[in-house]
């Protein structure tokens, strides 16, 4: 079993990982930038190393500094969290070369998952439907135009280097395509240190449904059921739940079976997510493999009772999974609202600033994963996600009522949060009835109505 892990991340996910490490008796090393000197992950970890200026590129994306910190503190393994270097094949390789265990799949698997065209080819070869798109990353605007002239508009431009909605744009015509390529490339460079983009046909009004899988190094593969992630704005998930109100037993079985086949085909060894788009006729299309822990993993933990970070660490240690497929049950309903420092009344504009008057919700069935506290400064240098409210209920109706209560209890001043938006969605008849797709927010009258 691993004895010391360096967490190459910040914010709520760094805390989340530290918490499980503590439960497992594993020592932790935090890394932090100038902006994070007073961060909770620094306080919670057993040791902490300063790795540079606030800009991610100079700190959390700087592999050399992270490797140096791991050597200095004698860590055995590096947990990349999500975002930053988590889906960076080179970083996983550098960890290996320096004799650190990278807590995630192999560099080869990350490379295959990250190379969307290769992944599409491999998975299409399994007989699983895939979305048509560019064969490789886009090399020039001219190439993009000629490709899309063949595919047909609308298309979606995506970052080759990562997910989370960063570097993603829909284009309905050539003008939007050219502008989208430029903006998306800039966003990708900053978010993932990689400006590469690829293009896919855009499927109308789909649902985004993903399958959580776990795979150890002893050829055991299990799935933990689906997550429904269709409530998104600008392709960033805002509300997730498990199970999905749209998925019946038959569809679940088919999707989970496909996800496991994909995981085996790419020799996936860790916790991972297979993302699908599902149309209104319940046809599903492979979208991508997320070769990391995901923001929304807690909804799966709530309904299955499985600590996904723990399993990730056990797998990386060479242990076997702690459960078989037969032992995994989806019990009740879980829902997560992402709390972002964004102003829902101003088109979700970023709202960095100092937290004041913070009161977190609590009571039965409520879990809050956050790194903020009173007087903490939410920095403009990082993602706007500052926390997650996760609830559990025996059924969806109970989960909705609990989330309504949790949102009402959450108090914060000094910065704008997505909470008023969530309150409106949780009261909306279509959402409550489970009638929505990824365009829900575009048709939603928003906060002002």
């Amino acid at each position, binding site marked *: 079993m691993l004895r010391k892990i360096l967490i190459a991340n910040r914010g709520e996910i760094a805390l989340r990982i530290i918490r499980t490490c503590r439960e497992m008796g594993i020592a932790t090393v935090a890394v932090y930038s100038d902006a994070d000197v007073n961060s909770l992950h620094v306080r919670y970890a057993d040791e902490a190393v300063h790795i540079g200026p*606030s*800009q991610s590129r100079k700190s959390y994306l700087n592999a050399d500094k992270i490797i140096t910190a791991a050597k200095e503190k004698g860590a055995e393994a590096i947990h990349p969290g999500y975002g930053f270097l988590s889906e960076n094949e080179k970083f996983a390789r550098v960890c290996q070369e320096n004799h650190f265990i990278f807590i995630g799949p192999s560099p080869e698997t990350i490379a295959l998952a990250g190379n969307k065209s290769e992944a599409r080819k491999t998975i299409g070869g399994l007989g699983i439907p895939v979305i048509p798109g560019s064969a490789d990353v886009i090399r020039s605007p001219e190439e993009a135009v000629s490709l899309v002239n063949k595919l047909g508009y609308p298309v979606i431009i995506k970052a080759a280097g990562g997910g989370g909605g*960063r570097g993603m744009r829909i284009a309905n015509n050539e003008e939007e395509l050219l502008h989208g390529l*430029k*903006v998306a*490339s*800039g*966003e990708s*460079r*900053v*978010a993932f240190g990689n*400006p590469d983009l690829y293009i896919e046909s855009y499927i109308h009004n789909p649902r985004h449904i993903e399958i959580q899988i776990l795979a150890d190094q002893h050829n055991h593969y299990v799935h933990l059921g689906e997550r429904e992630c269709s409530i998104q704005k600008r392709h960033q998930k805002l509300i997730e739940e498990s199970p999905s109100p749209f998925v019946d037993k038959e569809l679940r079985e088919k999707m989970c079976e496909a996800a496991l086949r994909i995981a085996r085909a790419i020799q996936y060894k860790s916790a991972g997510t297979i993302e699908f788009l599902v149309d209104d006729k319940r046809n599903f299309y492979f979208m991508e493999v997320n070769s990391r822990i995901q923001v929304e993993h807690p909804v799966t933990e709530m309904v299955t009772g499985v600590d996904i970070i723990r399993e990730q660490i056990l797998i990386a240690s060479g242990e076997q999974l702690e459960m078989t497929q037969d032992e995994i049950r989806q019990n009740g309903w879980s829902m997560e609202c992402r709390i972002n*420092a*964004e102003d829902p009344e101003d088109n979700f*504009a*970023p*709202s*960095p*600033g100092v937290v004041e008057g913070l009161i977190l919700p609590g009571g039965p069935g409520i879990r809050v994963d956050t790194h903020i506290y009173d007087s903490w400064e939410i920095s*403009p*240098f*990082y*993602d*706007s996600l500052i926390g997650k409210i996760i609830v559990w209920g025996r059924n969806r109706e109970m989960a909705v009522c609990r989330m309504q209560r949790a949102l009402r209890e959450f108090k914060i001043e000094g910065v704008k949060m997505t909470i008023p938006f969530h309150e409106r969605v949780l009261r909306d008849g279509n959402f409550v009835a489970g009638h929505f797709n990824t365009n829900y927010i575009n048709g939603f009258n928003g906060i002002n109505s």
Partner: protein
Amino acid sequence: MSGKVYKVTAPLAGTFYEAPSPEDAPFVEVGQKVKTGDVLCIVESMKVFTEIRAERGGTVVNVLVEDEDSVKKEQVLIEIEMT
């Protein structure tokens, strides 16, 4: 130098970028004429890029921040002498 100066400020705290990408030339330089709607710079906050556009036409007389500087909300970034 007789026209009124219009100050372009950061709409939110973040990082100032003078060009669309490190390989590109800056959007504007001192002495350059701009018209309403031209992109002057980018401010990145929480990984969101906001293009700052000229609300008035004129001549750029001052760029007060360096590429990749951290800027505060409402901080003056660029001065334009209106025509």
